[in-house]
């Protein structure tokens, strides 16, 4: 891999991140005359003068009393020290602490879903491509059509109702003490697995279909390439051709999908988390939005953006490893 290419990609990513930080700071302020008024709407029979005092104090408390540029500089200073700000919530918790509390639980769902989706999906895709036109392929195509029409919240509600409430095979929603009583024991892990079963199932169906569809199309495209014909002509074993020549060369679109999935790992799934009472990042963002908790919203958005930029950077670098011909933005 060329060092100049890596440096260029890293610099691009840093530039995009700087733009994201700037937008992340200014966008929530657009159309807001006075953040203090949003934080504390007028209430009671407070006089205008009293309310002005209250607003001034609220501005000072959350640093809105200085100019917007000064606020931006303070924000950058805080970021440099790893401080994402203070939430508006009672007790004024640090945004980073709130994220730390929720992120692991989101990762439980998203990583499980991604791994199951990747493994099963790739395998299904290969089988469908190899058995092109036969029932395995038809099944995948039909399943894709059906799944596109079924939103994950519908699947979640159906699974929760039948497998959870009616037949009681899995917990219909998260045990309210799972998080507070969690311990790194077999019992603790098994409890998390039990509670994660339905949310993961709700999400993995779409994930499997997506990877399978991508793999099938890529494998079919590569199977028709000349080098595969050459390999066959050389008399190589069928499995060698399938896994070493075809599958490896079909990996680029799968890596793209995987890269996009990685960027979504920490965002959480709002609807799935709501249906299953899962305390993850999705509902944290929703709560921040519902309560006008700007610092929290900005913190989550920054984290998501940063993670997305990082995952795109990694995807680009992995591309080069897989296919040295890739030279995005480089002169040939």
């Amino acid at each position, binding site marked *: 891999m060329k060092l100049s290419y890596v440096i260029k990609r890293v610099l691009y990513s840093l530039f995009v991140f700087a733009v994201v930080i700037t937008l992340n700071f200014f966008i929530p302020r657009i159309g807001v005359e006075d953040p203090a008024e949003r934080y504390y709407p*007028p209430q*009671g029979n407070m006089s205008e003068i009293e309310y002005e*005092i209250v607003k001034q104090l609220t501005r000072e408390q959350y640093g809105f009393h200085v100019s917007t540029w000064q606020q931006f500089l303070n924000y950058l200073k805080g970021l440099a020290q790893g401080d994402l700000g203070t939430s508006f919530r009672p007790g004024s918790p640090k945004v980073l602490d709130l994220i730390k509390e929720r992120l692991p639980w989101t990762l439980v769902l998203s990583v499980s879903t991604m791994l199951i989706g990747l493994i*099963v999906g790739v*395998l299904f895709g290969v089988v469908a491509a190899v058995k092109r036109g036969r029932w395995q392929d038809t099944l995948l195509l039909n399943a894709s059509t059906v799944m596109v029409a079924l939103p994950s919240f519908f699947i979640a509600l159906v699974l929760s109702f039948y497998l959870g409430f009616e037949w009681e095979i899995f917990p*219909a929603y998260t045990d309210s003490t799972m998080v*507070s009583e969690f311990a790194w024991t077999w019992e603790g892990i098994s409890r998390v697995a039990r509670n994660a*079963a339905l949310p993961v199932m709700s999400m993995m169906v779409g994930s499997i279909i997506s990877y399978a569809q991508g793999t099938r199309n890529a494998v079919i495209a590569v199977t028709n390439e000349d080098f595969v014909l050459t390999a066959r002509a050389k008399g190589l074993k069928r499995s060698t051709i399938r896994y070493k020549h075809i599958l490896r060369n079909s990996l680029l679109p799968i890596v793209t999908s995987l890269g996009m999935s990685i960027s979504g790992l920490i965002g959480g799934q709002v609807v799935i988390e*709501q249906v299953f*009472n899962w305390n993850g990042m999705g509902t944290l963002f929703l709560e921040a939005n519902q309560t006008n908790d700007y610092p929290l919203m900005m913190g989550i958005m920054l984290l998501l953006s940063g993670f997305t930029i990082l995952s795109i950077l990694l995807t680009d670098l992995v591309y080069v490893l897989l296919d040295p011909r890739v030279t995005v933005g480089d002169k040939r």
Partner: protein
Amino acid sequence: MTKRLLLLVLVGALALPLAGCQTGRGSHRPDPNTLYVGAVQSSFPSAYMPWLSREGIAPTIANMLYSSLFSYDEETDRYLPSIGREWYYVDENGEPILTEDGSIDYARLEEIYSDPQYDYLAVKVIIHQDITWSDGVPLTVEDIYYSFDLATNHALSNHAGALAWTSDLKHKYNNGVLVEKGLFTYERGALEQGYHIDPAERDYVIYLHVNKVLGAVTPLFTSVLILPKHVWEPVVSRENQLNSSSPSAELLYRYTHPVGCGPWVLDTEQSGSQQIVLHRRQDYHLKKPDGSPLYGVDTIKFILYKEQNVALYALLKGHIDVLDSSVSSNYLLLFAKEKDLFVSNAPGTFTQTLVFNLNPVASERNPLRDLLANREFRKALALAVNQDELIKNVLDGAGVPASAGLMRPSLTDFYNPEADSIVPRDYAQRLALANEILDGIVPDKDKDGYRLLGGERISFKILGTPGEQDVVSFLQIQFKKIGIDVQYAPKGAQPESTYLYTSKFDLVLQGVIFSLSNVDIMYPAHFSTLGRTSNYGRLVNEGLNAAIEEMRYTLNLNRKYELLKEIQPMIAQEFYKVPLYTANVISVARTDRFTGFQVVEGSTVFNSESLQNLRRVEGR
């Protein structure tokens, strides 16, 4: 090979979900003495400082852990004892201003305090003598003094709500310096002020000076949850304000380990972001007349649900006893098929209204909105509203028509039926009258309805939430009957900033609640004050404003009631906030473990009266 690999991966992928299979079907409500309560919201609070609890279930929990001086009973218009045992206004010598039967003597109160030398009313509060905080320390008037003093001293509390609640208290700070004293106890200037307190009662009597408004005591008595001085005073300072954006470890500990004087105590070990556990305090000072505990359950476990359908299934399948959330009338049919359910279809207190933008700021005026400035035009639209049809179609019958004076008929002391006799009852007659009015104002009309002189169709947008679209749809049908077109427009997340305060709307749906306890604040906000208040359509009516002002400042309760009755027809005649309906509050509980749930106006079935009446079902 492929088949074997496929099988292996399938087994591996299913391992995680299969690990989740439940081994048995245990009871979802294992403890027979615990009431399991579902709450639908996005999260539970992590801090329980009562003054900071504003969202979701936090105020409910705060009111169970802490107490205010009194609670207010709308029906009887009385303050019920809580921390406070009794209260009354006093004269300059501290003598009660009471009639022989012990009620407030408003005539004498007016006589004494009409004197301009007084710019306050003096109130004496006597508290119960057997109250303790949950850590065992006795509660005294020092705690009351500390709480009100802290609330008024923003330099220490940094709490806007507290300033609002105490804005009628004549106890003021300026940048941390006391500039006006309005709280007096035995040890804090009562004698110097001329108020006698028996030394034996020194810990239980406090005098307050409040603004000369009868409603001044309401927020002081009912909104300020009293804090334990011994817990907060040592840690609250200018550097560590009560509401701090970077609380110290000591403050944080107090936020998360509440010490209250309410009937319940928080189980900090078992409570977290997804459940809250409260235990009944055995030493709570209020008891039933027979001396038994006031509340019928030992423990309450609140369980978080983020999705209402899941919460309802959880209730129907016996995971919880009661849902602390109102549900749509669409669910009534579902409940009818279930056994062991108590459905509370409680009369509501919340009146849905249609508000006209009758006086937009100059930049937002246009020929259509000019029509709304015409009271007769508004009357024509109001005549077309058929509340019975709206209740039948939008609420499935779970509601009642609202009064044109916007006061609930259940508030018999000051509801004025005259407000409802301004327009005819017969709907056909009303439609005919509406068209008669419109023909006089807008002469251009075709088969599709009325048009402006330039040919523009008369069509208004009604701002509402997505959930209110069906209301607008039925209003569309009703207004179509008189030839006026209306369309739904989304309100958005911040309607005050984006539409309402800036006059960028034609009509908007708005819920209102008026009662004796809030009219002093709400009437000016809804009908008099211009700017950033609920008077979105910017009504200006000098006569109404004068009546509201007099009602707010009169010290004669009878006159206040008379004015309230006079104001209702004035509101109705403006056709400014036109009532649509008052929706019932539908909620549901299971009766297989506990019975005695109570229907309370404006409340879900999880209410204080239910908690006082709950009894275990024998053998369950």
